[in-house]
């Protein structure tokens, strides 16, 4: 790949890095993992850069790669995930205790959604994507996005801890 393409990719990645990490965070509830997913997505985009740069919507392309990279986490038998009742300790980032509690409560509720519901909620309500854009990223129909998002939202609202905490 020539220098100008590298420069173009660098600009592309800088402009979308934060958004993709946030998407990954919404899907996994783990910032470290989210950054790994985003980096993997950009690496795959770089590997196919000549095709990605010509895509109708390169943003949708890399978002989809993040979603797929997250699915691929489950490939390896040797990498197992232990589901627990409590969340891992969050990194101290100067947040107030109540902010950390709110975030933990919300992430906990999100992680209890099915993968499809979680992805639909994150894309629709965190990244403000339209139903059509969400359907493109998830590779499903608009109707499916509607139902997944609605069910996800209903489950979130039914989560007692969120209601008690005044989050929803």
């Amino acid at each position: 790949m020539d220098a100008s393409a590298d420069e173009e990719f660098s600009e592309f990645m800088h402009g979308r890095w934060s958004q993709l990490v946030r998407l990954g965070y919404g899907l996994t509830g783990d910032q470290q993992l989210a950054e790994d997913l985003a980096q993997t997505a950009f690496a795959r985009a770089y590997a196919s850069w000549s095709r990605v740069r010509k895509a109708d919507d390169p943003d949708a392309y890399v978002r989809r790669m993040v979603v797929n990279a997250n699915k691929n986490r489950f490939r390896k038998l040797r990498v197992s995930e232990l589901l627990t009742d409590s969340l891992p300790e969050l990194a101290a980032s100067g947040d107030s205790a109540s902010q950390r509690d709110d975030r933990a409560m919300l992430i906990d509720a999100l992680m209890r959604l099915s993968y499809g519901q979680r992805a639909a909620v994150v894309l629709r309500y965190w990244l403000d994507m339209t139903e059509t854009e969400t359907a493109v990223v998830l590779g499903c129909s608009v109707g499916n996005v509607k139902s997944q998002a609605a069910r996800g939202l209903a489950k979130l609202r039914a989560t007692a801890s969120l209601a008690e905490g005044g989050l929803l």
Partner: protein
Amino acid sequence: MSVQDERELRERLGGLLGEIEPRPAPVFAAMRQGRGIRMRRWVAAAAGLAIIAGGVAAIPALFGARPPAPATHRHYHYTESVHPPGKNAQVGLISSGTQDGHQWKIVMSGHGRRLSVSGAGLTQSSGPDLSSPEPVSATEGGGPGPGGNMTYVAAVRKDVTSVAITLAGGKTLNLVPVPYQGHRYIGVVWPYGIPVESAVAYHGSTELAYSVPRDRTWLENWWLPGQVGPARYTGTVGAGVTDGRHWRYAAQIGPWGYCYSLNDGTTDCLTGLHPVELHTASGHISPMLCGPFQNDTGTEPTVVLAAAGPDVWRVVVTLSDGTTQRISTVDADGARMLALGYGHGLKVVSTTEFDAAGAVVGTAPASTLNCR
């Protein structure tokens, strides 16, 4: 759902999400990783051409059934050094060194599930598997490619006092474990393409374990002295065309361990586990590897590799669109195995297992062969 609900949800989620502060974009690491992906694609394509050009005769050599030429037939030019951290080194520094004049270092950070690794050439930053009972438990690392590096980071058991990795050309890298957050780690960087001749873990001068590198590169499993890994076996477990994508799962078993390669460039190895240990009952199926076929187009078929009970010779799989697939199991080094591909958006509804005589020996719940 009212609009107000949506707005409220957006505000709450957006506010919380906005608090996430990602690290700076790792552009160069992503580029290096991307070059590695391109290189693996190129190697896979070249391997395919070699088979076409060379016919069946090329296959054993390709998969290593014939021992590779001794390293003494080639000369490798590289300089390599590795140093343990000094007294006043930064917290988390595991090792540092030089490779062909270029400095590198490996640094651990975080703790618990958030443990991460950074270092020269490292493209995957999750920490090693700390639950593994093996003497040396590596995390995947490395950004192989022309001019790239192999980065090896591993957690070691408490009784391991050193690990010696010998590269072709005779250079031995002696790695001393460094404590961090209650565990001990080793790390090293070497030039990709330089074969690994041997890897041994020691307690003092006593050998605790050794590893036979797969493709003379990847340290997958560690065996006790005197323990011998499985005999070499390569063969196709299953192949097909799903959603227009050709997929093929091949067993790549040998002294390095039990490894399975998909033609999307991924290889997964079981940690010292023979596939027959995965199932407990006759007529049973145990999924081993499961996930979407890797490509960049978005409509990936799901490909599943599974171990089957010793009496399972055929499996009939019913999918959510009503279609069925009849899959014969194959004997891969003493384990009956199968591979299945199904299209994007489909799920397995049920499976029925048959023995050699055609009698039903079991049925599996719908979720058995679904990836999630």
